[in-house]
């Protein structure tokens, strides 16, 4: 695939170690070579060291050992500004553009007039389909991500690090982004593509590096998903426990990209319930109190109820595999994935007759996802109704239950997950096939 790539390495990171001041070792000698015109996938479960590694490349974290060469020249990258000077730019996971401005206005504001010309040149030469004239707030998220990639290139960057760019995109938008990246690859730009969706990595990337426990478990060409999965999770079987249970009424799955009316649907379910209704909001930060301990983060939720907070917190930490020093640790010390599992666990286990989960596995790796699915089914089995929102078709099918697609305020006829037609779901999610 990388016929042009074998020339000379554009970027080489050798034997990178990252040791944080609290003693955590995030990277244990990670090496990665990026060629010109290559899309290089970087995968690994939560906490495998992906973020630390790219933060080293971007000058956010100083490595304890190891070296970086750019075009064969040994280089020290001491800050993001420094990284940009060396032609490296990182596109963060969450949108950083100003919503009321257009793509061009955003680019001019952050990088100046020369940047705008550069972007126009790239767009014209490659014939890219990008809407740079509409205010960003009116664009689909896939388009916004494409603009962010162009904004990165407008600085003159040759290497773009994409941090989970597809985590909130519909399949059609992912396909679209892939097309853009391929066109740019042809023009000699290189990408480091972080993802936890292996099917996408196989689809989009030329080569892939798998991190596990801070070490490189594999680096090379991409072949099949199953093999990558086993590499990521030291040989565990690919999610064997696809929950066959099709059409239980108690598990309602709503599939669709956020902002299509899910908020309103959730509110409907939240208002019509008798017992305690568990609720994980779309923005999980709404559900935690930063600066308070894990125990207090349980307490604040059920202040009026007679619960042994400490025992309950311990139970959640154990059964949801939350990594924390102890239950008195401030919740903001937890990593994103751990906090997410903690919140979902708290809500699922507190639920009496109903539980509303909005995108509970967003940003989680596949193993965590499988864990949460098991717990959701346990809740269903004890008679709790679970309303589950997701943006991911694979997840919806894996989970089971009754699946409906949500699109622009409309909800499709529910079908049992095991009888669902994947192509039809994809079409509905993209707005095709609605009567």
């Amino acid at each position, binding site marked *: 695939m990388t016929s042009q790539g074998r020339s000379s390495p554009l970027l080489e990171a050798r034997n990178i170690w990252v040791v944080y*001041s609290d003693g955590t070792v995030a990277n244990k000698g990670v090496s990665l070579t990026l060629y010109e015109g290559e899309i290089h996938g970087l995968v690994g479960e939560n906490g495998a060291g992906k973020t630390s590694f790219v933060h080293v490349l971007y000058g956010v974290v100083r490595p304890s050992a190891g070296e970086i060469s750019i075009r064969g020249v040994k280089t020290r990258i001491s800050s993001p500004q420094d990284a940009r000077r060396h032609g490296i730019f990182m596109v963060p996971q969450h949108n950083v553009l100003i919503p009321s401005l257009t793509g061009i206005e955003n680019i001019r504001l952050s990088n100046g007039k020369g940047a705008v010309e550069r972007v126009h040149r790239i767009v014209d030469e490659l014939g890219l389909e990008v809407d740079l004239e509409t205010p960003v707030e009116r664009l689909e998220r896939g388009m916004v991500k494409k603009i962010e990639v162009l904004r990165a290139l407008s600085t003159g960057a040759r290497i773009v690090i994409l941090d989970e760019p597809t985590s909130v995109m519909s399949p059609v938008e992912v396909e679209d982004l892939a097309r853009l990246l391929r066109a740019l690859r042809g023009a000699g730009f290189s990408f480091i593509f972080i993802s936890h969706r292996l099917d996408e990595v196989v689809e989009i990337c030329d080569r892939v590096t798998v991190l596990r426990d801070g070490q490189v478990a594999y680096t090379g060409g991409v072949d099949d998903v199953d093999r990558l999965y086993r590499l990521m999770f030291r040989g565990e079987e690919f999610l064997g426990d696809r929950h066959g249970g099709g059409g239980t009424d108690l598990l309602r799955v709503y599939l669709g990209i956020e902002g299509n009316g899910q908020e309103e649907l959730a509110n409907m379910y939240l208002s019509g319930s008798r017992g305690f209704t568990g*609720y994980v*909001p779309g923005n999980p930060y*709404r*559900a935690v*109190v930063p600066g*308070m301990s894990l125990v207090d983060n349980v*307490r*604040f939720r059920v*202040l009026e109820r007679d619960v042994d907070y400490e025992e309950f917190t311990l139970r959640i930490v154990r059964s949801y595999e939350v990594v924390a020093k102890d239950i008195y640790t401030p919740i903001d010390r937890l990593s994103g994935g751990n906090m997410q599992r903690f919140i979902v666990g708290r809500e699922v286990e507190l639920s009496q007759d109903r539980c509303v989960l909005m995108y509970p596995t967003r940003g989680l790796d596949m193993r965590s996802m499988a864990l949460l699915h098991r717990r959701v089914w346990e809740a269903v089995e004890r008679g709790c109704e679970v309303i589950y929102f997701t943006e991911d078709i694979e997840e919806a099918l894996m989970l089971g239950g009754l699946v409906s697609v949500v699109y622009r305020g409309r909800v499709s006829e529910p079908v049992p997950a095991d009888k669902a037609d994947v192509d039809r779901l994809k079409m509905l999610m993209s707005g095709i096939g609605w009567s």
Partner: protein
Amino acid sequence: MQLYRGLATLLAVSIAVAAYSGVIILYGGDPVEAYLKMFRNAFLDPYGLRETMRLAAALGIISLGLSIVFRAGLWNIGAEGQYVLGGLAAGYVVYILSLHGGGPVVPLLMGALIGGLYAALPGVLRWRLGVNEVLTTLMLNYVALYLLYYVVYGVWRDPQTGFPVTPEIPSLYRLPEIGGFVGGLAIMLLLAPVLYHLLFHTRYGFKLRVYGLNREAAEYAGYDRRMIIVSGLFISGFLAGLAGAGDFLGSYYRLMPRFSSGLGYTAIIVALLASNHPLLVPIASILFAGFLYGSYTLAIVADIPTEATYLMTGLLLAMLVSTQYLERWIGWLARRL
């Protein structure tokens, strides 16, 4: 994090002290000698100690209330007005109603209650109309201040002296002195653990803190926003009003145009200095009162202008408000080293 917070506060204080020392040097003084003199005047001299403690009591009582409401993430900038109105309400009981029963108790409680209601008003505006409490509490300071001018220059003016002051109150209304100290200090020291308990060991205090740390989370958990906003502001106003009535009944015995002279603003600094922790407020208020009184004496004996004091308090406030950024910066620095 606790450590970084402490270091940030220390850094804020150091910068303010350095600026004040700079002014002393500009005026040809020796900073070390000046600080020693301030300390002697404020804590070792019997008259000075009494004045310092009087100031500390008022500052501390107001700051205790502010530490509660600040924890709820609500910025009551109106303690100044609530303090003044507390004094006015007590004055109303003494001069107009002339209720003798109970001596100072009725005017004292009346002052506190009116101060509380005066603070609760912006709270109501906050939850009903979403009006920013910073603006309303700040503006109401002027309303209270001009009301004070109105009574002092007009209707309650002492006819005998002709000065813009109200008549001295009869002794039966006066707060008793305890061992030469004003009773206010005892009240502050008693209140501190009570408010600590309220904030850290009751459901109410817990809700208040949750609301302050993440409003959305408080709403997510179904807390009553109205109750938190209005009661939080009421408590802070109640204590500011208590301090105002207390100073009227316990140290000035009359109202005059410079009845408050910025205590309510200074108390904001004290609360922040104590990290909004009720048990630290007494310490912070005594230290700060010592500095204030000491620097006033310095103005008289060493020609260091009072403006230098304002410069330092202003700078200190700015630095303390920035502590969360300083804290982050220190954390960042610590990771780099």
